[in-house]
């Protein structure tokens, strides 16, 4: 039971580390960017430019947060 729990915990930690890592803001911005892009596309806007610009901005914010921390 302990071994199973240990593997389960390790598996969960792997995904947390993989997806969230050092700053949850990056993952949140990626998801927000995809949702906004899908909404704009549904409204007939060609929104291929949104995600790259959002990525550029969130990396800058995340680096600033790292510097402050």
């Amino acid at each position, binding site marked *: 039971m302990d071994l199973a729990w240990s593997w389960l915990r390790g598996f969960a930690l792997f995904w947390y580390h993989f*997806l969230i890592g050092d700053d949850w803001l990056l*993952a949140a911005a990626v998801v927000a960017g995809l949702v906004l892009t899908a909404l704009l596309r549904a409204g007939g806007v060609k929104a291929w430019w949104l995600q790259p610009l959002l990525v550029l901005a969130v*990396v800058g914010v995340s680096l600033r947060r790292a510097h402050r921390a």
Partner: protein
Amino acid sequence: MSASIGFVLVTTFLASTVEAIEMVTIVVGIGATRGWRSTLAGAGSGFLLLGVVIAVAGAALRAIPIGPLRLTVGTLLLVFGLQWLRKGVLRVAAHGFQGVREVQEDDERWRGAGMDWTAWLLAFKGVVLEGLEVAFIVVTFGATANQLGWAVFGGVSAVVVTGAVGFGIHHSVTRIPRSVLQLVVGVMLTTFGTFWSLEGLGIDWPAGDAAILGLLAFYLLAALGYIAIERGRVLGLSPGL
């Protein structure tokens, strides 16, 4: 060889090299301190498990339609690529071109009969933990680009080359500039993650596949710009930024 295969090979080779450096450093460190037989047995078991993970995950991913696959995998690669991009910028800005730390060697050589299970377990964990992320990148990248064979070839080549360097020239593997590799792979994963995730949403890129080169240039310039800003912060030239 097509451009697509070239991109897959370069990305999986570089991504695998980043983790293979840690992996080989751990295995060489354990082997040098506790003996090689059990260490190599542990590392071999770790690679066997990674092989099973790649085979099972690869087969499972091939059954998923390309649209949802690109959206899911692109999003995961983008999230993970951004983390490496961020780490790469911070490390290159702080330390420049630098390898990983050298492993401390203590005289803890195993002198008993049979298998040294401590060495086996340490090597096994080192290979599995360092290799799992890269196995995931290799299998998702390969499946989404429909080049799984070349992706696995790129990943395995990186481990073989890094391993040969690590075992052939003692400790030289620690001088490979891992931070720079992490930055480059971060830029490439961010590029492909952006491209595939939006394609998965049904977005048409201007210029089609050639947009990959534009994204690559955009993110590379952004990374270089952020390194310059971070170096300014490190040197205290732009504390307010």
